[in-house]
């Protein structure tokens, strides 16, 4: 079936699965998982160089093949997040950023006021802003109006693996904005990713669900298939839900067994 590409910041991507680089058991496992996921976009954090400086995570990522997506994880104010994006740009990581402004340490829920402010500033500065937000359709529209290149509502708290807790809100977000909608955070297993895509989301971003699985490479492949299956099912157009049965075989032509 014909499908369009995911477009972010004028760049086209065939893969709709964005994966992270955190918490892998080894760099070899990470590299294999990226391959198995078929990902084209890979998130990285921006942190202090440990001194003396040793090997870099980018020694294990083919930067000619993958588009890097630096995040602002750990930032609690718009100012910190904006400066982190500037650092990422100066580091040569590009102008596409996964914007996080965290509002609470325990839940890692976004501070949407700070997020909106940072989105506005960064979009004006020419960044392709991909904000991690809550599953609020009103905020999603405000982020779009502020210049976000997409909106990335959470399915559930980061690293929780609870799945898509409010599919109805995700559905309303999809109807509220014209930019791509990418579910970011909360995915625990393949069916969660499939559900996001079946709802009509444009992509799914995950880290822990793959990196924390007992076999990360196998889970990466499962996620790839789930995202593709969910997308295909969405494009195919599912049947309506009904309370009672509808026979699949014709009633007509049944033999008469009456005695």
């Amino acid at each position, binding site marked *: 079936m014909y499908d369009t590409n995911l477009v972010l910041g004028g760049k086209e991507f065939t893969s709709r699965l964005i994966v*992270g*680089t*955190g*918490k*892998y058991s080894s760099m070899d496992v*990470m590299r294999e998982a990226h391959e198995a996921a078929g990902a084209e976009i890979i*998130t*990285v*954090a*921006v*942190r*202090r*160089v440990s*001194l*003396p*400086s040793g090997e*870099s*995570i*980018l020694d294990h990522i083919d930067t000619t093949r993958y588009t*890097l997506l*630096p*995040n602002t*994880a750990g930032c609690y104010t718009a100012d910190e997040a904006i*400066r982190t994006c*500037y*650092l*990422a*740009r*100066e*580091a*040569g*990581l590009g102008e596409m950023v996964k914007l996080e402004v965290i509002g609470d340490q325990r839940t890692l829920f976004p501070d949407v006021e700070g997020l909106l402010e940072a989105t506005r500033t960064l979009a004006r500065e020419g960044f392709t802003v991909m904000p991690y937000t809550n599953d609020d359709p009103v905020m999603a529209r405000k982020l779009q109006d502020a210049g976000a290149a997409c909106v990335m509502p959470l399915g559930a708290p*980061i*690293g929780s693996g609870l799945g898509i807790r409010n599919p109805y809100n995700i559905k309303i977000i999809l109807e509220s904005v014209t930019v791509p909608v990418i579910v970011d955070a909360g995915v625990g297993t393949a069916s969660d990713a499939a559900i996001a895509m079946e709802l009509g989301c444009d992509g799914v*971003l*995950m*880290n*822990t669900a793959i*990196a924390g699985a007992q076999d990360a490479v196998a889970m990466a492949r499962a996620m790839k298939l789930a995202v593709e299956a969910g997308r295909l099912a969405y494009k195919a157009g599912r049947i309506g839900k009904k309370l009672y049965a509808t026979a699949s075989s014709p009633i007509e032509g049944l033999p008469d067994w009456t005695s």
Partner: protein
Amino acid sequence: MEISVNGKPMVVERGITVDGLLTLLDVKRQYTAVAVNRDVLRKADYGTLTLSEGDRVEIVRPMGGG
């Protein structure tokens, strides 16, 4: 003079440039960025910007994350 590099105190020669500091610390330039007192620097300024007593230098690069 004393400056702070990634949160740790460090004694360096007066008049050292950012470029000089990176060389002293043997930090690779690729995929690295530097901020001094909260201002993110452009790579082109590393050679000309001299550090001052008490400057807070942050040297960052990509790490694993989601």
